[in-house]
């Protein structure tokens, strides 16, 4: 990382972003700062209209024949260029009660849901700059809010995210464990065009069920980027006192002496994330685990890298 990128990174710290009330301002701040920071990034060097060569077929426009290649190989090849069309960018945001975990006003750390809103806003703003059609779906047991894809829906999405974030902070836990299957199935039916789907969740679900749910989206030819958000305490289980742990989704209680369970808990989380990564790799979904105490630029790197990859293979 270069020095300006480091400055940007520190600027993108979630605790700093949490002080920005306006999501658009936040998204602009993040994305523009991010792009400025990436001007020297080698990732952008590959950004060209040329895609691939294809053998000449009768009917092809002869202007597209690559004559230089013909001179070297004595064969006719046609140059294929990137389609200059926009795409649908769908953000599916899990707003189940478990996502409300992690808010720590003393440390200025946002909850997973807030972090997810930042992330969704930034990614949407970024895509909007690319003239993509942006869409948002918030899900719980079912689809909660849905903003259909449109190049003009940036403000609506940001407003929806802001509402979700504020609502999530004040909401009481509703009993029952949320699942991805039902909402994702419904959403997949609404996606008529191939879309780039970003799923942001904490995935407290069996990996098989998660892959099953993703299959409905992925099966329609959509490209998927999966962000797995976890609070540092969910990763490290850094609790000290014996406490009654309450499941934020089901309301179940369990007395826990953290020091007894910490080691095994960490192992189970690691197994869970490893399984998810493996299974999603198999289903060609891009998967990344994010610590909500870490800056947002990591997510943007992941998104941009994935987007570039998808654009190549398209």
């Amino acid at each position, binding site marked *: 990382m270069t020095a300006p990128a480091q400055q940007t990174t520190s600027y993108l710290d979630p605790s700093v972003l949490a002080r920005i009330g306006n999501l658009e301002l936040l998204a602009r701040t993040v994305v523009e700062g991010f792009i400025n920071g990436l001007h020297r990034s080698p990732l952008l060097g590959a950004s060209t209209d040329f895609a691939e060569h294809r053998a000449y077929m009768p009917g092809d426009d002869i202007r597209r024949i690559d004559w230089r290649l013909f001179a070297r190989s004595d064969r006719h090849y046609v140059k294929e260029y990137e389609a200059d069309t926009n795409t649908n960018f769908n953000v599916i945001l899990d707003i189940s*009660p478990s996502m409300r975990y992690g808010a720590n006003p003393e440390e200025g750390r946002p909850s997973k849901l807030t972090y997810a809103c930042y992330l969704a806003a930034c990614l949407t703003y970024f895509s909007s700059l690319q003239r993509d059609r942006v869409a948002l779906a918030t899900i719980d047991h079912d689809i909660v809010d849905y903003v259909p894809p449109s190049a003009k829906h940036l403000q609506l999405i940001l407003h929806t995210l802001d509402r979700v974030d504020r609502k999530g902070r004040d909401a009481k836990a509703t009993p029952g464990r949320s699942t991805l299957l039902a909402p994702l199935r419904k959403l997949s039916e609404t996606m008529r065009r191939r879309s780039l789907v970003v799923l942001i969740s904490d995935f407290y679900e069996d990996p098989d069920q998660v892959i099953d749910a993703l299959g409905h989206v992925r099966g329609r030819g959509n490209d998927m980027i999966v962000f797995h958000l976890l609070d540092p305490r969910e990763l490290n289980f850094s609790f000290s006192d014996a406490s009654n742990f309450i499941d*934020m989704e089901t309301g179940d209680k369990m007395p826990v002496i953290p020091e007894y369970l910490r080691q095994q808990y960490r192992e189970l989380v690691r197994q869970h994330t490893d399984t998810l990564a493996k299974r999603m790799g198999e289903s060609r979904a891009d998967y990344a685990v994010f610590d909500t105490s870490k800056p947002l630029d990591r997510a943007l790197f992941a998104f941009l890298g994935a987007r570039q990859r998808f654009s190549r293979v398209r």
Partner: protein
Amino acid sequence: MNFLAPAFLAGLAAIAVPVIIHLIHRERRVVVEFPSLMFLRRIPYRSVRRQKIRHLLLLLLRCIALALLVAAFARPFFERRRAGLSTTGAREVVVLLDRSSSMGYADRWSKAKDAARKVVNGLSSGDRATLVLFASDASVASEPMATPDRITAAINAAKLSAEGTRYGGALKLASQIVAASNLPRREVVLISDFQKIGWANHNEIVFPQGTTVTPVDLGGGASSDVAVSQVTTDRDSTGERDRVTVAARLINTGGATKQVAASLAIGGRDVQTQRVTLPASGVLQVAFTSIAVPSGATKGVVHITPDSLAQDDALNFTIAPDEAVPVLIVEPSSPRENQSLFLSRALAIGDRPSFRIDVKRVDAVTPRDLDGRALIVLDEVAPPTGPVGARLRALVDGGGGVIVVPGGNRTETWPVEWRSLLPIVGQIVDRTEDAGGTLSSLDYAHPIFEIFNAPRSGDFSTARFYRYRALSLQPGMTIIARFDDGSPALVERLVGRGKLLTWASTVDSYWTNLPLQPVFLPFVHQLGKHAGRYADPRPSFTAGDVLDLSRHGELTAPFLSGRAVDSTTELVLEAPSGARERVTATGANHMITLREQGFYELRGRDTPVGSGRPIAVNVDPTESDLSHLDPQDVVVAVTTVNKQNPLGSETIAATPQDQEQRQKVWWYLLLSALLLMGAETMLSNRLSKAMSS
């Protein structure tokens, strides 16, 4: 198991405290909202359970430690009921036979012997018995391992003593005998009249566990006795013949009025008799008319009509003129006029004691002049050398006194051996210009000045000392009086058994006006009595007293006249029973215990029998007090377990306090609790480390 302080057991409720805290802790446990318990529920339950069991073990340890702590405070003890007492097997029997004077009352002594014989006759084969005779002290009268016949013979041979009753020594001796015994049964038989006056609670005396103490009480019941408890004599030497007025004090301890005849015998012959009536439990003074007595020591007896206790019906005494203290004042060869006048005249006055004074000039003194002297005054003369000096030194070593008055003498020329014994005599201090010095600091605790301690008992402040010698002390010296400038006025040093006193001024009016003051006479008398080792003569002694001949020059003086008082001069002391003993006025053999009632006779080796100095000995007057003591008091005192050494008794069981104090179970409980707490700490630390890793 019993508890001395069972109220502390309420503290066991404190065991619930850790549990309650645990429960409260659970109730107050912090509620933490967590996204999902999905992973926590997957953690195997057995793992959590195992941790809980460990926790319960710690809880158990803490509870046990707390319970032990509470139990320690409750002071537990195990009640023991005379365990270890044997009822079969051979016996170790100790017979304590009281032979004090009071056992002569009526037929107590014969009954006591019968009781002792009965005990001995009751011995079985294998039993072992010891006969201990006691009065004021105790001694084993039978040989070790003696047969019953020999013990019976010892009982038959036992005689009454004139001494008083003391149970302590006898019980101590008995406890030592039974403690040393390896026989399974131990028995102490105490045969006595249990006279109350002889008992003091001897807490230090303990009998080993299982010892049976059997009292044989021969006292008790109504007893009546009339005794001659005291005799006073008043000797009048003013006439041609000495006359003595004798008064006797009679005591009636009985509950009835008694008529008795009180007789005074002088020289073995009754000279007066008075019939008197004694009130019940009363005292009567009987005064005899004065009688002429010989100039020497004479035996006197006041006796009354014999009654049940004959031993105290007569009281012996001696009528003896006060022995004069022989003093030799040594003057310079050319003395001042009346140099020794004040001293000799002052000493010559008075008869208790009287001083026999000789004044000699130093060049005329021979060794023989020092023989028999109790006090030598070196009045401004140097200590003699040669044979006279050696004799003087022997006199001091033997207990004689020397008063050294340096005056204006040149002390530099004094013999070195004397200078080392005396303070360093310095220059003459002339106080004429300031109207003379005074005596400012007197040691009123010293025998010389103790009579002046009371108010208006002598004023030394009026005496002026115009000149005196500055004295510097050497090791071993004591300052008895100081002048007002702090300089020593009178210095004492003990040499051998005698005394060396140094007076810084003069004994005449040459340097001081002290001889002209009223205190001079008592002062020089005190000085002479102290330096000459004078002791008031005793008309009688009590059986059991120790006679120290070195302190009673009036007894030995008649037989040492003309000879040096040293440890080699042997005298003979003949007891009333006729037993003779060689004694010396000083040295190793000068202390004799007077055990027999009657008149001892002290005489020189060449003195005819009957011409010696009589020494009257009487029974212990306390023996006339026949107050009775409950035998059980003695038994309880020596068999109770409230002692350092635990023991058992047939009659008294140990109190809970005693048992608890002896067993000290609390101490072990406390130690166990501490060990458990230590183990708990180690275990919990180890578990914490294991859990946190």
